[in-house]
């Protein structure tokens, strides 16, 4: 009797573990499978919100150029102070707009791209924008890592933002 209960308990735990692991593995796989996804950006090119906030302080030596590569509607609601709107990285028009913005900049210009439209591995914008700048030869491009979205991971953590176009 006791043996059967132990077996039932072990079976329950095993089923629960499998049910938990399947969506995690699916998320990992879907991120790795798409070369244009945010997951394709190397870890060395990522910058965390608190680190970027530090670089943007008034006394910071060299402030990076911050470019939002997502939706204009979101940029209008709130964006990082000093950030410029570059256009969604997932569209040809957005990439063209990004290219125009950086056309006259030196290749060693320090830049930070961000979007925050969706959970990180679902963002369609930062991957293509990063890849384009990399292909154009820019050597100091970082991408702001926003795990969930701009609201939760930037505003929600008390970092500054401004409204407007």
């Amino acid at each position, binding site marked *: 009797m006791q043996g059967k209960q132990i077996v039932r*308990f072990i079976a329950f735990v095993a089923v629960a573990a499998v049910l938990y692991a399947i969506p995690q593995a699916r998320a990992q796989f879907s991120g790795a499978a798409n070369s244009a996804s945010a997951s394709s950006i190397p870890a060395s090119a990522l910058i965390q919100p608190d680190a970027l906030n530090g670089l943007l302080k008034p006394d910071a030596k060299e402030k990076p150029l911050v470019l939002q590569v997502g*939706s204009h509607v979101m940029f209008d*609601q709130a964006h990082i102070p000093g950030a410029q709107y570059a256009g969604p990285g997932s569209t040809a028009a957005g990439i063209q707009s990004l290219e125009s913005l950086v056309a006259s900049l030196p290749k060693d210009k320090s830049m930070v791209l961000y979007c925050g439209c*969706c959970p990180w591995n679902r963002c369609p914008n930062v991957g293509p924008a990063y890849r384009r700048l990399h292909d154009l030869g820019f050597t100091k491009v970082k991408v702001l890592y926003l795990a969930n*979205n701009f609201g939760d991971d930037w505003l929600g953590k008390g970092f500054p933002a401004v409204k407007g176009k």
Partner: protein
Amino acid sequence: MFRCIGAMALLAIALSAATLQAAAATDPLLHKPAPSFVRNDLNHQRVDLAAYRGRVVLLSFWATWCAPCQIEMPRFVAWQSRYGSDGLQIVGVSMDDDDAPVIALTRKRKVNYPIVMGDEELGTLYGGILGLPVTYLIDRNGTIIAKFKGETSLSDLETAIQKALRGR
């Protein structure tokens, strides 16, 4: 020994419940009247949120470029068909920058509920829509009773709709 196993099982259940709770985010608008707005939908029909008083409203902020939103959309279409006669009204607010891709996608997906175009004003009205998808569930009295953010469990969302339709 079995007390120990029982305690572990209870702990596991509590942890999984906490994980599910985290999916249903809290919001200052929760349990408050849903901010009203009037817009024209993609078919140029007037959509007045206040006019849906008496129905349960699922207000979905989404965009064509939002992958999790694409997973929700077919379910929303099915729910509008299944629960519409019980009093459910789904309203989509697209946060796309222009309506051309929205019109194309909603036609392709045969969306059977009104879609209006969102903007800074509408986003700010709902506390800032700074990440998608975001879905509000509004009861028959026009009060926001739940908010779902990010990749939500659609079965949890459907259960919440069913409860709201039963008036609980």
